[in-house]
């Protein structure tokens, strides 16, 4: 059934449809509706909801719940995600499945509560200490936020990994219809989890390996897993012309705006194609390599002064990739983006 909800509520509804057992969180704008919605629904359903004393507490409660085999989630925004990062490193090290939502706001520091996409490095490149990765999903609508929050729990279980859902203040606060219905989810058996059975007495959840060789083996195993994830899970939406004059790229809210820009450019006689990554780690580099032909300019747009663009450039070595970013809480106007695209097409012609 269709329900008009904010992106922040869609996350919770998706989690519940996926059978999420527990929510631990701490309030922060613009993510607070996630905690509001979770508190409204988890406890009446006999599930766990705790407003933790701090972000650090919340992520470590997630650690405890995930160690116990529960489907568990937390949510925050940039400053809170910074605080959670130590815990996320431990979750990755101990290979614990969980879902973490980052509703990005403006930084650095306290910044403000407007939309930005400046947590990209923090979330996609690690953020916590150590040589780990975490799966990062980037929805561009409320419906996709809902669907990805269901998918996130399956991915977390499948790969025994923390999974991020990376949204922003706009996606979190905007309302759109979602279609809520029962879906099949794949909750893994977790024989390794902490339990109260005799068989589980030997179970140990840890990220410590004192012996250097043991630790190296553990890290190598993690990276063998990461290679498989990279192979299997990278995803992107491609929209627009088959043989474009320009390729536009952006994720989340920016990617969605670029869809409108593709249409507007088309009206002006410019063939454009959008690549919108739906996973940021693993990054859909292959899609870029397939879609972007030599000589076709690429305009990469994000709400930051240039983080996401680095992965675009790494995917297209030697290629002309131009970055355009707005920050501070401002969204670019479509006209502004059309102008940037037109300029780049013109420059490419002149080259």
């Amino acid at each position: 059934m269709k329900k008009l909800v904010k992106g922040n509520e869609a996350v919770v509804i998706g989690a519940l449809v996926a059978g999420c057992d527990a929510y631990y969180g701490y309030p922060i704008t613009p993510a607070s509706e996630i905690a509001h919605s979770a508190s409204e629904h988890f406890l009446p359903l006999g599930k766990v909801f705790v407003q933790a004393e701090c972000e650090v507490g919340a992520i470590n409660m997630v650690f405890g719940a995930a160690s116990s085999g529960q489907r568990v989630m937390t949510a925050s925004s940039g400053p809170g995600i910074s605080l959670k990062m130590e815990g996320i490193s431990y979750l990755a090290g101990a290979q614990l499945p969980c879902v973490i939502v980052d509703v990005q706001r403006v930084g650095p520091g306290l910044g403000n509560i407007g939309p930005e996409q400046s947590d990209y490095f923090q979330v996609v490149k690690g953020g916590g200490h150590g040589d780990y990765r975490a799966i990062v999903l980037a929805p561009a609508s409320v419906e996709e936020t809902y669907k990805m929050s269901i998918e996130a729990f399956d991915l977390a279980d499948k790969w025994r990994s923390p999974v991020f859902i990376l949204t922003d203040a706009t996606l979190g606060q905007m309302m759109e219809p979602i279609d809520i219905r029962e879906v099949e989810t794949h909750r893994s058996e977790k024989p390794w989890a902490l339990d109260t059975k005799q068989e589980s007495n030997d179970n140990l959840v840890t990220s410590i390996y004192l012996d250097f060789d043991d630790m190296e083996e553990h890290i190598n195993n993690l990276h063998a897993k990461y290679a498989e994830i990279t192979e299997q899970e990278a995803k992107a939406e491609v929209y627009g012309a088959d043989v474009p004059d320009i390729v536009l790229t952006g994720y989340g809210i920016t990617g969605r705006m670029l869809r409108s820009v593709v249409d507007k450019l088309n009206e002006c006689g410019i063939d454009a194609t959008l690549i919108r990554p739906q996973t940021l780690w693993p990054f859909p580099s292959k899609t870029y390599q397939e879609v972007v032909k030599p000589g076709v300019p690429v305009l990469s747009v994000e709400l930051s002064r240039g983080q996401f663009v680095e992965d675009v450039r790494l995917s297209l070595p030697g290629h002309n990739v131009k970055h355009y970013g707005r920050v501070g809480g401002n969204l670019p106007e479509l006209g502004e983006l059309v102008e940037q695209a037109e300029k780049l097409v013109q420059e490419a012609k002149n080259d």
Partner: protein
Amino acid sequence: MTKVFEKSPAFFDTFTRKPSMQKTTHYCPGCGHGTLNKIIADQIAELGLQDQTIFVGPVGCGVFIYYYFESASVSAAHGRASAVATGVSRANPDSVTISYQGDGDLAAIGTSNAIHAANRGENMIVFFVNNNIYGMTGGQLAPTTLIDQTSTTSPTGRTVLNDGHPLKMAEMVAGLEAPVLSARVAVNTPRNVRQAVKVIKRGLEIQRDKKGYAFIEVLSQCPTNWKKESKEACDWIDEVVCKQYPIGVIKDVADQREAQIRLAERVEFEALADQLGLTTDDEDTSQKIEMLQDELRFKFAGFGGQGILSLGMMMAQMSMEQNMEVTWLPSYGPEMRGGVANCSVVVGKKAIGSPAIESPNVLVALNRPSLEKFGPLVPEEGLIIYNSSLIDQVPDNLKGQVYALPATDLASDAGTVKAANAVVLGFVARKTGMFQLSDLENFLRETFKKPAMLETNLKAVLAGWNAAEKD
């Protein structure tokens, strides 16, 4: 021959989780941890709790607690054992969750998590090993280090001026309402060990009976970092440490407490659908709104309190119910604080790209700043509806078709100025041809449960609807 002393069955026979030297512990000679481990293991075995027990290990000398106990175990980040134990305990309501923490872990970096777990009355038992020093990292000052005691970071002794007073955690925890048991024991002498056994057994029974949070501070000797012989270290606890940290049960209210059960259930989709208030599907998914164009972009703007955001939501909700694509986006930034609110609503036949609106097809401006700000953005064929009750001067740079609607006055006539948004809804619905009056009335009947509110809003919508005809 009777055995009078043996390895507890709650311990591993061989410490296979330990990378090497699997028959000995990692503790230094003379350390109190081993004695404490033995007491805990004996009592777990005696109470038959081994399979139920889950250990949460800290960072500190207790980090390898899982080497010894044959129970499910997890190692936490430094200071976070009580938070991890909260997650474990909530996920395993039938467990005996043990958080085993040292004084750096619990009384310094993790105080917040420890105190809040206590204050929530989590079903867990915390062993707080107080040897008034950081052991694992090399003998640094702890919050529990005694005045004048030297450490590697207080080489001339702790001073009140620089480091404050030693923290008395058991007393602090006892001062909270929720904890059932707070006590301090020591493991330096046979007499103190006998007392510790009793208190620890009591704490584990409280866990078995689900009565809530138990906190046991354990004074333990650290000959290595105290730079004392083992015997000397044990004596020092009696002679000096116990003066600062008196041994005894500070609080025990277990007999007055009931078992506390916290749920951790899985539910079927039906229960969730019920909780979310989902009703059955409408089979008809055809788009029922006749649109002036494929996509209409509305900007609703006014003072905070004029119901601007809910006006937008009503438009979005009604359009969604007619199977249209919709987005609703509230305004952000300093305007919200300045008392001006706005929201953008897009209603379309196809998937909507950007939810942000640069040039609205329809602008509703309920106050003058809104009209001045957004009015000029409306193109020639667009509609500008402004609240003529509050706006007496129309900017001369407007291109769109301008309609004056005395929304506040009409709402006031209907019963309350707060219904100005309903007046606008009626007007916009008719002007754009998107909804029938009956659609609006049905919608209001679903939205407003209080009869008086419904009455007022029905009147207000009708007033707006009628005003649209006059124009």
